[in-house]
């Protein structure tokens, strides 16, 4: 670990030797990057998914075409999508991969938010409207909270799939922990490759557990039992 801070100033750390020891900073560096990519991609995905889902929910005729569009985006192979986004976002920065990941989450998030909203019992929304709720207040105060279980289920899936898909970016020199896959294969360092895989899996498990917990905390009524 000697001089780790100065050794890599501005540059990604580099795996030295065939062993794990002395290379923890590499794992830390790419894990941090992986988390950053995932968080930004998910945040962007959620940010776009909500208005799109709200629109699909309010105007059901728009839902099938919107769903089809998100499906088409999802069907674009990731490397091709990075390349497609390049002209708009640049080739050398992290933006294409983050935006691509955000776009992929839409197929899951939009669908789950809309299905969650649709599952809100009709008599509940009817009561809310009849008691004098305004449209947005009813959405935020009644429909959205009741859709939380379905939305969280979608976010868990989106998070895990994003964490896994980011690694594909390793092939183009981006991709956080995916870099360790690429480098490990290129230079024949099995330990680097395995460490990267383990880190990705752990990250996915932790993200899933965190979202599961968040969902649990946000929906106390689902646990209420008849006394």
């Amino acid at each position: 670990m000697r001089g780790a801070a100065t050794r890599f100033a501005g540059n990604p750390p580099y795996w030295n030797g065939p062993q794990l020891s002395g290379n923890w900073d590499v794992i830390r560096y790419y894990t941090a990057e992986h988390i950053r990519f995932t968080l930004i991609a998910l945040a962007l995905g959620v940010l776009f998914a909500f208005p799109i889902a709200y629109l699909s929910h309010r105007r059901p005729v728009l839902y099938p075409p919107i769903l089809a569009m998100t499906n088409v985006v999802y069907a674009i192979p990731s490397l091709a999508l990075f390349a497609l986004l390049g002209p708009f976002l640049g080739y050398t920065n992290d933006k294409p991969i983050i935006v691509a990941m955000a776009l992929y989450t839409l197929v899951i998030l939009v669908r789950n938010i809309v299905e969650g909203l649709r599952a809100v019992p009709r008599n509940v929304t009817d009561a809310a409207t009849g008691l004098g709720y305004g449209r947005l207040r009813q959405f935020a105060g009644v429909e959205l909270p009741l859709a939380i279980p379905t939305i969280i289920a979608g976010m868990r899936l989106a998070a895990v799939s994003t964490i896994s898909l980011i690694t594909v970016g390793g092939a183009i020199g981006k991709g956080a922990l995916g870099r360790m896959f690429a480098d490990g294969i290129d230079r024949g360092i099995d330990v680097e490759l395995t460490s990267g895989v383990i880190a990705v899996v752990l990250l996915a498990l932790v993200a899933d557990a965190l979202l599961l917990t968040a969902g649990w905390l946000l929906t106390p009524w689902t646990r209420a039992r008849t006394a």
Partner: protein
Amino acid sequence: MIQLDRVTKQFPDGTVAVDELSLELPTGEVLALLGTSGSGKTTTLRMINRLIEPTRGTISIDGRDVRSLDVHELRRGIGYVIQQAGLFPHRTVIDNVTTVPRLLGWDRRRSRSRAMELLELFGLDDSMSDRYPAQLSGGQQQRVGVARALAADPPVLLMDEPFGAVDPIVRAQLQVEFARLQRELGKTVVFVTHDVDEAITVGTQIAVLRTGGVLAQIGTPKDVLAHPTDLFVADFMGADRQVKLLGLLPASAVNQRRLADLPSDWEVVLDGAGRPTGWCRRGAPVTTEVITPVRPGATARAVLEAALASESGAAIHVDDHGVATGVSTLDDLSLASIEAAA
């Protein structure tokens, strides 16, 4: 006062749900909108708080056209109760009840104390207030639904088959409870139901709608039972509508004979205090029989039931002390004479 003036609702697919409906409901009355499915009763109700907008005609509350008001303000000023209560599953009982006060911007303390007051009025104890709807019985949920509708003390209450989703025993309890509460509260209520007995129990007025949302008859429960305008109303009110009518008339209106004037050879057996203990044939040895006397305040229907249940074919009236005051036979149960006396 709620007024509907030639209100028509035609849906985009061409179906006419309500057709030229006009009616007037004075303040403090309970109007039971009675009809089968497809008679437009729910549509009518939902036009009052503008969940559905009429195609033609006007609806006004206390002289003001409902369309001249802001729709949210209008709805916050009208209590709304629906089938299966429609409680918010993610909110506790107290938070459900304080819904409209919060929408109206009341402060937290005032909302909560008002909610607690209502929960008490509905016989829901303090420990219920922090439960979620899923933790309540169907009957309790309905009570919370009514409490929620009354939270901001609206003068008008719209109820759409509010007790439709509970079992018959709880349902009957809720109806009686509601009728009693309404006598204290004096709200102007529109109550949608397809159940004739419910309409009779809660309504001070009954409007019978036929398919297509056409008003067949409107009047007091007694009027509609006694004088249905046509065969449709008569059928709808039921083959037993005369018996139902007896249930609305007082036992005191039934002709009573003196105990000695029974037109048969039956005699009432009395104990030392003058309370009836049974019947016996004149001259025959006394055998005791379980009898159900008609108490003061009972309905004419109780007289009929007592007469049918009795071996002698007559009902015994008693006073507050249980002392026999007279008898009525089935011959005395003529509707015309009871109605005239009531």
